[in-house]
């Protein structure tokens, strides 16, 4: 049978054969090949740090920022470019220093420490540092709303923002004297997050026993408002 006759007598067979052969073509791999980008993954993307809740012997502390990449891991370490925004009042190298900002090889995220220094000026000032991610050779910038980490640093004893919700049920109305007393007798430095039940039980018990001992030794503890410190 001649070829022309096959085309005439069985066109669908020929078409199917052509299609079958066409499927043998090598597919192009659909892989992500864009440049990697990076964004702040800390939740929240800010920290309020006060040295006032730490003993005076603590002169350096740190907060941790976390970052995550969009894209593939790399076989080499990649640097994150962090630049303080112009409105920042904290001085880099004096009030704080950003640790090694690197996404390590084969990793998708990074934890970067910011070292904070207890300077005399922090006693009466609250300083601000906003660290922006900028593009560099390793990373483009990631999600637009997750490109900065905001940090406030002070050495002023302030009422924790969660006092009324987290601590007032155990310790009552806030006062600076009461808070300083709690810091001293419990040794707890983190008053900006809600405690676990076991912790709140102990803190409450310790504070009451310590106040009992204080009052027996010194008479009532009076706060800055002239009121006797007590726990409900």
């Amino acid at each position, binding site marked *: 049978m001649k070829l022309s006759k096959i085309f005439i007598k069985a066109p669908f067979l020929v078409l199917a054969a052509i299609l079958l052969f066409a499927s043998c073509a090598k597919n192009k791999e659909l892989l992500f090949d864009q440049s990697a980008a990076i964004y702040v993954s800390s939740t929240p993307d800010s920290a309020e740090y006060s040295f006032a809740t730490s003993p005076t012997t603590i002169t350096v502390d740190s907060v941790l920022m976390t970052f995550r990449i969009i894209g593939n891991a790399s076989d080499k370490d990649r640097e994150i470019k962090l630049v303080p925004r112009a409105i920042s009042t904290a001085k880099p190298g004096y009030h704080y220093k950003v640790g090694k900002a690197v996404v390590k090889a084969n990793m998708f995220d990074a934890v970067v420490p910011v070292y904070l220094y207890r300077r005399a000026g922090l006693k009466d000032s609250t300083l601000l540092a906003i660290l922006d991610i900028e593009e560099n050779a390793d990373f483009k910038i990631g999600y637009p709303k997750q490109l900065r980490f905001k940090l406030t640093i002070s050495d002023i004893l302030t009422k924790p923002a969660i006092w009324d919700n987290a601590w007032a*049920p*155990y310790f009552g109305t806030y006062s600076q004297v009461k808070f300083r007393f709690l810091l001293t007798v419990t040794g707890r430095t983190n008053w900006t997050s809600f405690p*676990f*039940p*076991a*912790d*709140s*039980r*102990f803190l*409450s*018990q*310790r504070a*009451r*026993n310590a106040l*009992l001992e204080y009052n027996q030794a010194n008479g009532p503890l009076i706060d800055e408002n002239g009121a006797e410190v007590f*726990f*409900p």
Partner: protein
Amino acid sequence: MMTSNMKSKYNKAFSILSIVGLILLSGCYKDKSNEGLIDINKIGIVDAKATGVLTVFQNDTLVLKPTLSLSLQEKANNLEYSWVQYSSNGNISLAAPRSVIASMYELKLPISPNEYTLGEPYVLRFQVKDKESGVTYYLNYNIVIGNKYGNGWLVLEEKAGRGDLSFIFPDSTVEHNVYTSRNPNAPITGPKKLELTPFVITDDISAVGKRLYILADNGSQEYNYLTMAKKFDFSFEFYQAPAVIKPQVTTWLSASAAVGNSRSGNLGIVINNYRAHSNLVGGFPGVKKWGDIALTPTGTQNYSLAPFTAGGPNVAAIVYDNTSKRFYNIVAYSATPAAGALTPFANTASSTAFDLNNVGMTEIFQDSADVIHNYNAVMRSDDNQPYLFRFKTVNTSTATPNLSVSKTLMNAPGILNYTAAAGSTNTSHIYYSNTNVLSRYEVSSNSIVESYSFPPSEQVTAIKFAKFNLNDKESVKLARLVVATWNGTVGKLYYFALSQTGAIGNPTKQFTGFGKVVDMAYKY
């Protein structure tokens, strides 16, 4: 004359016939490949111990010697033996490393706790190789490392001021020096009390499990419940250790309405130096330790607790203050009043039987009663009369909890000076001792209904009641009373199989060779 077509057909036929002929002829070749074969010594290996899982105890020596059967007995000397071991815990590894641990026919394997983990399964493979043929036959033994101290009576005793433990196994064999052999570097001075939890505790200080404490004048400690090796010093278990270490109670209570070990512990109570400390555990994260001294409702430490506590579905913990002569409630979790503080009972909590907040007597004994969540408390009045107060830790109703149940002037001679006592959870009885006499006080008739006298030289030092014996093979499982005596030289321990009506009868078993028994607990 053949045509070319015929010639071609002839050639084809000739070729096919030639090939077939060659193939047929090749079959006539004599195959000499099996001339060098030797008879294989077929080896059978059997052992009844290999049919199931073999439980082996730590510190024991495992001896295995399977039976061999050989098809060629004359080649018995041509065998090579080996024992291979590997972990068969699939959760750890499906390809655990194999190691050859012996090359003898009979295995004598010391089960060292350092090498064989409690509860872990292992395979021991016995291999026999016929050296001539190179063929290896094998038999697998599945073993699991068990704890022989899992079930039995744990006995705390004092020997020349030092504490030690003995263990009475279900088969009534006794092992002495259990504590000192396991904790040679953690001596106990002045042992006072054994505390075992019947349910698991999730304090995140250590792995979830039951807890074992030994309270002592010096060196109270927590021990591994399974191995009884020391885990922690007493003071480590507090957020801030008390200034005075004088532990009297370390126990865990359950708010569960269930019974036995199906409960879960939620509130721990320590009574140390007559003051309460508490520890709340649950599903929340973080390490849970014992808290600070509980304060009275007026915010003072002016109280002195009796060394007893109880908990239940509606009362996290109830304690008795011998200073203000009243019961207090310890709340598990609350901001105000502070969780862990001594809290008065609501006025509605008490029935007309007596006021929990105003008892007016000194508590000298307390134990579980025969009704679940009910407790008997023996009190001494100011005019030296014994009273039995019964209370419960489950509400009759929310509106009228009626936690106080009854108050009775006891007709129980000598109970104010008892040397040891235990309440029955089966029948309405309290067993107590004076000198060498064991008495059965019946609550319902308010009288002593039976007594048993030990030899005059033996003073009763401890009594424990066990509702049933886990290893009891009888159809009716009888409660057991265990009584320890001391004659100044040696301690003895007696089992009494209590009748269904609580009768003591005569001892069913007797053990000797103890120091002065201070306390006992059934471990399971």
